[in-house]
């Protein structure tokens, strides 16, 4: 049997988030035929959830005066704890201002500079001049020397996604939504495209293209608690990993955001602290200045998250009414009713809707929560994946390596469009010069393989394991063993548990019939891939015996540039139950390793 439909195009884009859509625009503008696949309509992609903003050194706002790409670059490298690719970071910082302006010309209603003296809730007083009035303004975000986070009120991701999608509509690029790529088709050298399942009716279709772009976003959902959308399951990385040829880079580098709101772990944007919010403990004490006198609540995310957990461990956590996990408080009451309900309306609504709390009057419970996957499909600086010709990756799904071991807030949204532009151009260039013969035997085999797998899942031929049990166990294992503070022992146990789960995931059998748009089947198909991804994170973390950025080993608390100035590459060999790790050096040609300047190096134990 073969696939229901076979679609041909020049460029196949898997994903319809910002990175994917932006690259699709680049390819389409080069005259190539493009098809976009997505689990959900483009505007529902998780990029819409970004509230805070996008970093770009426009230097319009008074507090951003004198900003330039070089300062942005230094912030990014320091943020990454020297783990990033500096050439990529430089190229990124130089391009991103034009990207913001292009988005403006496409219709993003960026907030603008208004002239006059201002007193911010945080106590800072500035004056914006007439000369800059009407230009794009910026707000403060963690880990930066200047205010450079461009925003549209509380819905930056939303407006940028919508506007980029208007261009996709204008160019009439076909989007096949509710379609899930379930495996890549390749002949060992070149990527042909993918096998995809239509989530409307369960049919398998084949997409063949000269170039395939993975822009499938993060993998946060391998953790039980994450700020990510429920579709951020890392499928793009997982199907690349499964080829055995393409490595995932730096998967152990997972960012935890300081302010996820229990019980559903929805993100309270960093803007809340950027605008002057405090973190309080159970004694209503503002504790961050004790640890980080300079940057306080606005040290980089990894630092703030660790300080929070450290503070909870020291006995200052607040008992939660929802779970056994303690939390801390976010306090933005002093910003005032008006500020909170206009400039921070989205989070005010979230606190209200999901916790019944009005943040202008009450405290909001917060706890560090999985937030971002720095790692992903390893690519070169053109966005071309290692290991297979014609395969590209960008956005959160990729390890282009702008973020190294810690991403700066606002750098990721900026990365998606910038990578989409820079790498999209390279994809176009590659595709225009490429010819492709598709070996149809390879294609048919790939479909047959997936079909057989689906039949086995439905019939329960390989076993009767419950897919939801496995997912839950994976999520809690990651929470318990591979979280903010990591130790060799816990990681070893975690890896062992995940290996066990991996074996079980190969024996899943459905409880339902699997017919039509069956959700159980959809999850069962990707479950082994998710556990493989989780194993790359856990095993990578176990082997990296240093602390860098958000990867923090209690048994190796210092950064170790002598041995570990390198990038993890995780491969999955056929039949294995662990990834094979390889390493490549990280070059630091522009900014040699040094102190991050967050005061962390000098941080002592908790002050009482």
């Amino acid at each position, binding site marked *: 049997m073969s696939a229901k439909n076979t679609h041909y195009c020049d460029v196949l884009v898997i994903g319809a988030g910002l990175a994917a859509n932006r690259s699709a625009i680049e390819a389409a503008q080069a005259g190539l035929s493009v098809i976009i696949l997505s689990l959900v*309509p483009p505007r529902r992609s*998780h990029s819409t959830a970004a509230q805070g903003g996008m970093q770009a050194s426009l230097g319009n706002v008074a507090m951003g005066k004198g900003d330039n790409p070089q300062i942005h670059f230094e912030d990014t490298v320091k943020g990454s704890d020297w783990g990033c690719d500096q050439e990529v970071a430089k190229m990124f910082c130089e391009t991103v201002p034009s990207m913001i302006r292009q988005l403006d*010309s496409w*219709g993003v209603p960026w907030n603008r*500079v208004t002239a006059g003296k201002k007193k911010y809730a945080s106590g800072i007083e500035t004056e914006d001049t007439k000369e800059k009035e009407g230009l794009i*303004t910026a707000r403060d975000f963690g880990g930066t020397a200047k205010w450079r986070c461009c925003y549209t009120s509380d819905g930056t991701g939303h407006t940028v996604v919508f506007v980029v999608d208007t261009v996709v509509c204008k160019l009439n690029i076909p*989007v096949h939504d509710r379609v899930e790529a379930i495996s890549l088709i390749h002949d060992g050298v070149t990527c042909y495209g993918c096998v995809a399942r239509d989530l*409307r009716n369960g049919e398998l279709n084949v997409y063949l293209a000269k170039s395939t772009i993975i822009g499938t976003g993060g993998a946060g959902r391998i953790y039980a608690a994450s700020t990510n*959308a429920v579709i951020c399951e890392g499928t793009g990385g997982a199907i690349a990993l499964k080829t055995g040829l393409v490595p995932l880079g730096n998967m152990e580098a997972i960012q935890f955001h300081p302010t996820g709101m229990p019980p559903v772990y929805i993100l309270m944007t960093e803007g809340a602290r950027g605008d002057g919010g405090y973190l309080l403990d159970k004694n209503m004490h503002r504790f961050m200045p004790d640890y980080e006198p300079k940057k306080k609540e606005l040290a980089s995310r990894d630092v703030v998250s660790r300080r929070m957990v450290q503070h909870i461990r020291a006995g200052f956590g607040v008992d939660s009414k929802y779970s056994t996990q303690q939390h801390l408080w976010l306090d933005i009451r002093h910003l005032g009713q008006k500020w909170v309900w206009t400039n921070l309306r989205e989070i005010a609504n979230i606190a209200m809707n999901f916790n019944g709390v009005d943040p202008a009057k009450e405290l909001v419970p917060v706890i560090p929560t999985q937030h971002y996957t720095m790692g992903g499909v390893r690519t070169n600086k053109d966005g071309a994946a290692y290991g297979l010709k014609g395969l590209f990756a960008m956005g959160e799904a990729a390890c282009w390596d702008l973020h190294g071991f810690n991403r700066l807030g606002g750098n990721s949204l900026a990365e998606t469009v910038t990578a989409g532009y820079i790498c999209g151009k390279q994809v176009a260039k590659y595709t225009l010069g490429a010819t492709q013969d598709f070996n149809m035997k390879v294609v048919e085999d790939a479909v047959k393989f997936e079909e057989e797998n689906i039949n086995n899942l439905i019939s329960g031929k390989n076993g009767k394991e419950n897919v*939801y049990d496995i997912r839950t166990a994976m999520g809690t294992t990651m929470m318990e063993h591979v979280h903010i503070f990591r130790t060799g022992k816990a990681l070893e146990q975690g890896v062992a548990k995940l290996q066990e789960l991996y074996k079980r995931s190969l024996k899943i059998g459905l409880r339902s019939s699997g017919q039509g748009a069956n959700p159980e089947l959809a999850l069962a198909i990707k479950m082994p891939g998710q556990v493989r991804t989780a194993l790359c994170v856990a095993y990578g973390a176990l082997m990296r015996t240093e602390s860098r950025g958000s990867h923090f080993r209690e048994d190796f608390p210092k950064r170790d540039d002598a041995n570990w100035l390198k990038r993890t590459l995780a491969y999955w060999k056929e039949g294995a139950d662990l990834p094979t790790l390889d390493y490549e050096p990280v070059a630091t040609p522009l900014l040699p390793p040094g102190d991050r300047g967050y005061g962390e190096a000098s941080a002592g134990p908790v002050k009482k």
Partner: protein
Amino acid sequence: MGRQITISCFRFNPNIPGDKPRMQDYKLEEYEGMTLFIALNDIREKLDPTLVFDFVCRAAICGSCAMLINGRPRLACKTMTRNLPSHFTVMPLPVFKLIGDLSVDTGKWFRDLQMRTEAWIHTTKKFDFNALEVRMDNKIAEEIYEPERCVECGCCVACCITANIRDDFMGATGINRVCRFIIDPRDERADAEYFEVVGDEGGTFGCVGLMACDDMCPMELPLQENLAFVRRKMAGAGLKLTFPGIKL
């Protein structure tokens, strides 16, 4: 111990031959902070793995999870079960094509809408990579953001009788979308051009003023205001077209 709740859920999967629309009851124990997102996922994981529904962000920002909850369109993810009676119904949104159970095809509908209203900035300016952005008053930026906040959840379409009985009516969201471009100075379209895309019964003059949209938009967009704005604007444009001499 939480309350015992019963959810009557619409079930029908058009892809399964012989399947018939029906209501099915599920009993659950409620717990602190339970949203319909949690409840429906619990049902799927523990009681019935075939149940089809859509959630993406579970934070009321992506618009995926709209459904009729006790008859009213709402975002399921931000609906707390404690605000509902102990027995309530959930049904898929009308108007949109049913995919299965609670899931409907809003994606295609909204894409058609974008194409039909040409919902993108129309400009003759070429973007210059080296130039500064065009200045804009911050007030205008904020004004554009107001209608732009629509998450395309489809609630305003589902609750509108006009949209229910007229296939070509674009609903409040469609008119609101055009409103967003009308106030954007970067879009160079003349009123007459906007008239072409909303100045008919499929658009602004099809609205009867039922105001269910205004009452039920989960983003609380000021739809009455925006709809009236477009109607007046388009009436002006249309009259000018009809009576070329007229000054308005």
